């Protein structure tokens, strides 16, 4: 797709989204519909983890990439380079030493619960979200908060909730609150237009 066509398409989409919002309130359906229009995006992230295991917070940073409908990539740059890629129901990772590993989401429900919450939100896939979580949305279009509380027992034993914050179609924060008190906060800075 050349730049001009992309621009035209973007403008059309923007008008479409704006038209819909103007017609109604900012609700789950509106957020999901807006997200479904996003075919791909990339951003920088900084993640801070507060773990009981550690006396101080742990910070990492790098890049995130999303390609609709189901590909999500996390490229950590600091403190060590590694990649973590979710595609379909498989996670493929590369460690610092270059070794690769593959995980099946089906085999790791707690990991699945974490990544699926973020990915289904990015994809605007409400049915998937609602299959795994009780979903509630607060705030308005300019500043919203999506709270996901897991249904499955095996996940509830580990995770209290996931709170995704955003502005417009963009996700800006992801917070995970774990049962044992550990939590992580990721701030996301979308690459500018």
């Amino acid at each position: 797709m050349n730049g001009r066509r992309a621009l035209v398409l973007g403008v059309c989409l923007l008008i479409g989204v704006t038209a819909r919002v103007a017609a109604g309130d900012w609700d789950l359906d509106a957020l999901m519909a807006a997200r479904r229009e996003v075919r791909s995006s990339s951003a920088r992230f900084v993640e801070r983890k507060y773990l009981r295991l550690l006396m101080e917070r742990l910070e990492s940073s790098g890049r995130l990439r999303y390609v609709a409908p189901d590909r999500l990539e996390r490229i950590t740059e600091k403190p060590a380079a590694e990649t973590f890629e979710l595609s379909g129901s498989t996670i493929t990772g590369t460690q610092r030493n270059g070794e690769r590993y593959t995980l099946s989401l089906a085999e790791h429900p707690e990991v699945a619960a974490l990544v699926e919450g973020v990915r289904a939100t990015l994809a605007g896939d409400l049915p998937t979200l609602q299959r795994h979580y009780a979903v509630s949305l607060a705030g308005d279009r300019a500043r919203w908060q999506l709270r996901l509380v897991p249904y499955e027992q095996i996940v509830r034993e580990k995770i209290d909730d996931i709170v995704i914050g955003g502005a417009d179609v963009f996700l800006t924060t992801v917070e995970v609150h774990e049962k044992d008190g550990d939590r992580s906060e990721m701030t996301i800075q979308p690459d500018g237009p």
Partner: protein
Amino acid sequence: MRRARSIVIAGWLLGLAALIVVISRTPFSTDMSAFLPRAPAPEQQALVDQLREGVASRIVLAAIEGADAATRASLSRAMAQRLRDDPAFARVENGESGGTSADQSFVWRNRYVLSAAVDAERFTAAGLRRALERDLEILASGMEPLLKASITRDPTGEAIGLAQTLGGEVHREIRAGVWTARDGARALLLFQTRAAGFDVDGQEHAVDAIAGAFAAARAAQPAAAGARLVMSGPGVFAVRTRAAMKHDVSLYSTVAMSVIVALLLLLYRSLPVLLLTLAPVVSAALAGLAAVGLCFGFVHGITVGFGITLIGEAVDYAIYLFVQSKGQGGTATTLRRIMPTLQLGVLVSICGFAAMLFSSFTGFVQLGVFTIAGLAVALGVTRFVLPRLVPAEFAWTGELVPASRLLALVQRAGALRWVLLALVAFALAGVQARRGDLWQDELSSMSPIPAADLALDGDLRRDIGAPDVRYIVTASAPDREAVLEAGERTDAVLRELVAAGVLSGFDAPGRYLPSARMQAARVAALPPPAVLRTALAEALTGLPFRPESFEPFLAEVAAARAAPPLTRAALDGTALALKVDSLLLERADRWIATLPLRDVRDPGRVSRALATLPAPARGRVVLVDLKTESDALLHRYRHEAILLALLGAVAIAGLLLVWLRSLRMTLAVLAPLAVAVIGTVGVLTLGAGRLSIFNVFGLLLVIAVGSNYCLFFLRGDLSGERGAATVGSLLAANLCTVIGFGALGLSHLPVLFDIGRTVALGTALSLVAAAILTPGLARSQAAGTPA
């Protein structure tokens, strides 16, 4: 006289009853390894073991095609759920979790004795420091949710390392929660049966269970109507081959039998005589089976299949008796006249088949025993029982319309000898020109598996990442510990080769069950609690970890130091147990460890590296190329078959020479047989045709049956009505053989196709050649030899 007759008939019937009792107590086996050699070289033993019970022989690959991805996935889940409870399977994998938790728990509990990374340096302050720094990186990474819980118990990451080594590096595509082919069109399942590959009944049970689970899952889902199940794997092939063999043998032997019966009815125009003709055949088959049962304790299914080959010869005896009785004053007179010829004929055949008794393949020895016992009994029944079942004055009164014309032809046939010799010379030249590639040289040429099935197997294997085993390293030693230690030394060498890119991976029994010595060394590398505590405290200095978090680690290392050594019994209940059992085999007086290699790029280098290893006491470590070995096995088969056939031919020649006391008369019998063999080989190798081992055994049959024709031409009176009857009986006998074996030649299975064609063609050729050559050769001698 009448009394004697009753006694003989009663004795015969009693004998048949006894044979039936013996047979009913004989188990029938379908273990194909009866056709593998009894005392092979060590490399071939490895092949035979792999074929019989190696882990590769127990794998069944299945794929669900058709319908949509979600439906395929749900079918896969339903099948797996049902089959995981089925004791026929040691392992059911479809990409879901489940079935592996026992394995994971075993690996987790025993990580300190299983991990090759465990050494003393790893638990020093410096070693622990490195591990903890790495743990921090993991906590910061995307893997944190997965590994956070294990870090305080396993900071050195032994369990993760083991999961990567044991899980293999094969990438598996998961879609809709289940294993899927890379192109997304098939859901994949992998089964490991408990039954070994050679246990065809067990494999059949497993294959049926998989098909049943699929059918049940499909029936439960309306959207699944378009879904299909395809299966592959050694067990699946074995089951299909046996079914095809059963089908073909019963179909074509029924066809052959019906045509033969119709032909004989046409000939005799008498149902009782027809039934009498079959009496020697049935007796012979029962005697053959019983003899094999008594000698071996079991009868192989293939031996039974070949039982029909007996029809070819045993049916002849009664035909000779009845047809030649025409106008000869009854069966008693005829019998007296033809008996010497028949006796010699049977002796010649037995000589030929006796060669098979020296085969190193149990299956062929069984065939030899079967045939010899069968022919002897067929002759005995023809000699003693048949005459007493028909009135002494019985004489066949039918009319073989072409018989007199046939006789006229035979009387002039000698003129054709130059034509025949020219054809033989032509055939010989053809064979000579092809001598470089006369033989089918790959074991696969004997394989009854259709090419399309093999292609599917290749596809599924690639999709599933199942090993396509060609190269394995085998280590042998007198006991389990010694072989495990040899395997561990090999493991170390292979790991260096993997790092050097010579191969991409391998498996080894020591990964699941390390030798006692290796376990002791690893436990010894774990420091005492106080020492470990001090080292950990030093390693933690300056790191953000809370020191008290690692109490579980300290406790578990202490427990590992005190734990009893790991034994094979500890693996019970895990899929790893089966893996160890298939990689570690116990033979009569020794243990063999197998290490299957993946993706070998330079086998020479692997061999050289292994040569540097110190050999275990009274044992050895070798690289085995299963393809080379299987081809070598085929060569061995073939050389043996040719040797035995030659041996049989020499024995036959010797017997004839002793019996006939005339070189020329012997030649009169052997020349047509040589012509038939050369001619048959010439025709079989016409164009691009190549010979298989089955052709060789077919030729042995040609010699056994064809020699009877020659003997009749040699000793029979070839003039007048008696001559016509002799020639007619030979033609009728040969027609039965050609029809019987020709029907087998319709099969697509190499063994039936090859033997059927060879015998049908060869016996017809030997009849023609005998008619042309034998009377002439015999006549020129007649003056000097008493009849």
